[in-house]
């Protein structure tokens, strides 16, 4: 069946949603929230987004997109250039190779998997930043941020599932 031009355009628009959403989440995490300390430990929503789409629609979240999202995060957050790009690509690779294990498992398992990956992600980021500055940087903020990111997963997960079902659609 040959698809019409408009149909293809509609499909394309739906298919860029995961990557656009991740960029929007990067932007959102820089908005001043006026709540003491919240901005310092604000969850890494883009990481959750990359985890979700790599798991369920890897065709719409290619490794290059993860790299670009990480780079955008570095540019806007002021973190050492390239650190989040590195972390997001590594996380993408890890999720991509373990997809077979996670698919069809209960939410608790998926959450636990994310907790392990997020732990690894923040450790890698901390090591990379320490290597960048040539000293062991204070990791308290990163630890708290890992905690908030893992803790808020169920909330953002609902949003992503709704977005997946209503806008992006199944493969």
């Amino acid at each position, binding site marked *: 069946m040959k698809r019409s031009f408009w149909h293809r355009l509609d499909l394309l628009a739906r298919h860029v949603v995961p990557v656009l959403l991740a960029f929007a989440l990067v*932007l*959102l*995490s*820089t*908005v*001043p*929230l*006026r*709540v*003491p*300390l*919240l*901005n*310092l*430990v*604000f969850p890494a929503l883009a990481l959750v987004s990359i985890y979700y789409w790599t798991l369920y629609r890897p065709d719409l979240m290619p*490794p*290059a997109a*993860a*790299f670009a999202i*990480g*780079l*955008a995060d*570095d*540019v*806007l*957050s*002021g*973190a*050492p*250039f*390239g*650190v989040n*790009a*590195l972390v997001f*690509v*590594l996380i*993408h*690779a890890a999720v*991509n190779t373990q997809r077979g294990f996670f698919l069809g498992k209960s939410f608790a398992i998926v959450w636990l998997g994310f907790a392990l990956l997020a732990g690894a992600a*923040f450790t890698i*980021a*901390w090591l*990379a*930043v320490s290597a*960048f*500055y040539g000293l062991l*940087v*204070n*990791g*308290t*903020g*990163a630890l*708290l*941020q890992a905690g908030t990111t893992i803790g808020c997963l169920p909330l953002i997960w609902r949003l992503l599932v709704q977005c997946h079902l209503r806008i992006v659609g199944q493969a």
Partner: protein
Amino acid sequence: MWNAWKLLATWLTYGVLVLAAGAAMLLGKADAVLVERLRVQVADVVAPILESVSRPVDRAADVVASSRRLVDLVEENSALRQEREHLLQWQAVAQRLEAENAQLRDLLKLVAEPEARFVAARVVADPGGAYAHSLLVNTGRRDGVEKGQIVLTGEGLVGRIAASANRVSRVLLISDLNSRVPVAVGEGRARAILAGDNSVYPRLIHLDPDETIASGDQVVTSGITDAFPPGLPVGTVVSVQHGDVRVAPFVKQSRVEFVRVVDHRLPALIDDFLAGRTETPILPPLQLPAAANAQLSASAPAEAQAEGTAAPPTVVPLPVPRPGDRIRP
């Protein structure tokens, strides 16, 4: 066979991207200026989006804050009355010192201080994150904001401009890992460097071990280098443990909504010095904006005016007194 090629291609992609990330980090290390310029250029592009998103958030935060204030209005009122009494005493002290300062300046025939220029700006992004403490403000090169200018609020020092694009600038906060501010601590004015380490409380380093520092000591800029004019309030010492001295900045990052970017024009002064027009390089004290000066002189006590010790045209700010400070006339 096809699957094997696909797998190989995927891993090659990962390899290339990891190398690219490494290259980006090396670039950031080798040419920090280039990366900083890239950051503000990108921020310049997304500034309109950030601004439109941050406004409703600000409004919501204001509504929450004002409803919270309504609850403890009576308590706050009495606290404010007390503080007002306290500040009036300080005002009298400040005016006396200011007059004395003016007379001493006159005696010493000090050269006129260069004008400090202010630009007010709104915070449009607070990127936070564990590895960088910075803010984006909606003022840039078109308003004359340049790298190195200092950023203040009424409470004290916020940081410095790390880079400026046309419409936005990035402010490096004093708590950032890359921030170093020469400061003077306590009444003994012990010299030290306030070094950010990405925690909420920056550390004091290069402190003379013989100096006695105690919790509650005020920290102000010392003006030792040309980066900051002297006397700007920075914070108070919160903990002294085994040589690890921590400072709580007066300005809380999350509460900053508006800032002043100050061009204290020190390079011009140094140029003057090098050209032999000034005998000694004088660090210019910061001046309050004209409106604040007018307000100060309008509220000056009548007897001070009668004695002819009315406020001179410039006001040198003293470290901001905090509630509970002792006043020593």
